[in-house]
């Protein structure tokens, strides 16, 4: 059944081919889901509402980008949600302590950077320490620190303009500012991953870390950069999330880590490393949002929504395999 692609070498299908095809599939699904949604709910094609709906979980999108890159390099980061929490809390505290909001925002990004660098440092400096366990532990550690510094309090009262980040629109249009911000960051990530030597090295590491090292690629340094980048983006996500919530608490962004990984993988990124790209991840983000939005508009109860999303998630990923096996058998018998 697998006769055509088998070799002793555990290779795979061609990288570019696969993920290009995958992205087209996602585009198709997005169109399909939109059509179905439009049928089911009269509110779906409301342009402004659609834009707002897209903006709702875009702060997760900021984290999807670096996490996709980390997955492509063959590692994993499950501490991002806690980095968001800690950055948010420390930003709020520094604002409360009298720092101007702009500087407080810098604090958030700086805290995120520090957390990411901490992860990266441990993972690259202590051989034998895997990124799963480090970021798993860091997940508790960072959120724990957020609890220590803020306890059961909430801090808010930010200046009015700050809420613009998550709630504001571009001029008088109905395009939320956050979509623009995300767009810029996404383009940057896309270019870095797909158009620079850095990105090329990330793929090499993800496909074969040993060979990458033997080729003189500074594997540790690149991983350190990747984890730090995840920290930076988590800090940025904290800025937007806090703006959305209008206040900060240690328990924000709970459970983001799995969702973010799921979106990246749905976008074609292989958790085993070396495969996938930024466009796919972004398409997956849009697809997920549209699905949830559509189901929400027709008031599918939360518990049923879980089942539906679960099934769709599995089916979407299974789809190309099903198509593939149909094609192979047709080739054989036809």
């Amino acid at each position: 059944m697998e006769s055509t692609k088998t070799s002793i070498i555990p290779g795979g299908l061609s990288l570019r081919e696969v993920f290009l095809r995958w992205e087209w599939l996602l585009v198709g699904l997005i169109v399909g889901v939109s059509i179905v949604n439009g049928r089911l709910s009269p509110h779906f094609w409301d342009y402004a509402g659609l834009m707002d709906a897209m903006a709702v979980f875009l702060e997760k999108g900021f984290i999807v980008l670096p996490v996709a890159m980390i997955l492509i390099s063959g590692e994993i980061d499950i501490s991002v949600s806690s980095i968001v929490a800690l950055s948010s809390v420390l930003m709020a505290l520094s604002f409360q302590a009298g720092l101007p909001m702009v500087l407080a925002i810098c604090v958030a990004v700086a805290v995120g950077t520090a957390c990411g660098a901490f992860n990266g440092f441990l993972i690259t400096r202590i051989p034998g320490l895997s990124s799963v366990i480090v970021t798993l532990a860091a997940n508790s550690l960072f959120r724990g620190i957020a609890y220590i510094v803020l306890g059961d309090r909430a801090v808010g009262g930010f200046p009015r303009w700050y809420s613009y980040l998550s709630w504001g629109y571009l001029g008088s249009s109905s395009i939320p500012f956050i979509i623009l911000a995300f767009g810029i960051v996404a383009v940057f990530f896309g270019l870095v991953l797909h158009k620079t030597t850095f990105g090329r090295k990330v793929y090499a590491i993800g496909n074969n870390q040993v060979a990458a090292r033997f080729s003189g690629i500074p594997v540790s340094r690149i991983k350190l950069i990747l984890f730090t980048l995840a920290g930076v983006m988590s800090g940025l996500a904290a800025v937007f999330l806090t703006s959305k919530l209008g206040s900060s608490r240690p328990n924000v962004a709970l459970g983001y880590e799995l969702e973010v990984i799921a979106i990246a993988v749905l976008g074609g990124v292989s958790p085993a490393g070396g495969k996938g790209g930024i466009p796919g991840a972004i398409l997956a983000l849009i697809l997920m949002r549209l699905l949830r939005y559509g189901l929400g508009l027709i008031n599918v109860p939360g518990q049923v929504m879980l089942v539906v999303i679960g099934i769709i998630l599995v089916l979407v990923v299974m789809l190309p395999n099903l198509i593939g096996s149909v094609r192979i058998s047709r080739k054989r018998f036809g």
Partner: protein
Amino acid sequence: MNGLKMDTYVLELKNISKYFPGVKALEEVGFNLKKGEIHALVGENGAGKSTLIKIITGVLQPDEGEIFFHGEKIVFSDPTVAQKNLIAAIYQNPTCFPHLSVTENIFMGHPIVEPRTRRLLWNEMNAEAMRLLKTLGSELNPGSKMGDLSVAQQQMVEIAKALSLDARILIMDEPTAALTSRETEELYEITRTLRKKGTSVVFISHRFEDIYQIADRVTVLRDGKSVGTWNVSEISEGELIKAMVGREISQLFPKSEVPIGDEVLRVEGLSRVGYFADISFSLHEGEILGFSGLVGSGRSEVAQAIFGIHPYDGGKIFVRGKEVPIDSPWKAMEMGIGYLPEDRQLQGLVLPLTITDNITLSTLDRYARKGWLKSRAGHDISQKLFSLLKIKASSIFDKTYSLSGGNQQKVVVGKLLAGELRILIMDEPTKGVDVGAKSAIHKIMSDLAANGFALIMISSEMPEILGMSDSIVVMREGRITRTFSREEANQEKLLTAAVEVGR
């Protein structure tokens, strides 16, 4: 010859064709195997040898053609069918379980169990593994983790695995490529014993001494077609080469005499606990320094320490007279040191990437402006090396996993050459490479030396070491035992130094 009618073959392949996207790997190939014969299969890199044996074992299915087993038609739909029919194979690229022990690697799939409860009998398996390895002249501990072994050692385990199957047909795809002469001799012995027991052996090799030492018949493949089958006694080496390549190749080791220049690399008392100790030598411009020794003698370890893969914990490295601390490959490359790794699949290539991506991998920054890749980055140099090394593929955009073993090796060589580094350490540079390409690589090495490059060549192939080196270092159990100049060295001296001297 052995009481068998000439027309009944143990195995007969008729008109086998196999196509890969864009490649005709095999075209109407016929092949037959008699009971109790050793049948060599030869041909250039990419001729289709490995593909043919994968078809026999059921790893691949032919697109056309039929297979007869003891005169009856059979379909090897998956590897289990071949196994049930007692066909065992050693593949070109080790198909091992890196996380598991040597014993487990040997017995996975056919363990020794208690008949009733089917409980695994570990003691029996360990003892048997130890015995099998001993017959191969290896002292490997059956409890070692497979992933910790060198390629050559893994190759030994693969051979032991095939032997443990007690097969009636044994297929070996370049088993000797990484072995030194001592292990090779043991392998010959075993193969001959098997032949006596009536086992049929298919033996793929690029080394002619293998073929003339043990094979009864030889089949030549060229560009996916079979050229013919001969009794080994009836065909000369020159004729064989001509059948394979289509032309004659005169000089196998074209090392030209070049004046030895300044010292570029000096190693003093280098040691790494548990691996090697007290390694000292120096390397000059225009020199090819050969490293010889048995499998596991630590040559690769030393090379990798110099290249910054593993830290060393004693000794000094001087590059052009200046002591340099090398703790990572990219630092080594900054110092102008390049390394061609022995394990092409694990250390040399990023298999899912294309030939050009691999060739340019270590020099990426050269094809970029401030980190931004130029389009068509490095395609020129890849194309040049592609032609120079005669890599058999449709273009430089083929994925390297689809290449034959020898062609993968050529890509690794190309990658090293693309680096434009002045000190090259080549670990088994011609492993698995066919005669034509081998002489081409030797020519390149010789030219490099003539242009003032300095080369270290680790090789397990005695003629290569003797033919190419200006001087030869022999290692044994992590220490240098002797150093020979080109003139004083000969096979015997090297062998004794590898096993005896230093006690």
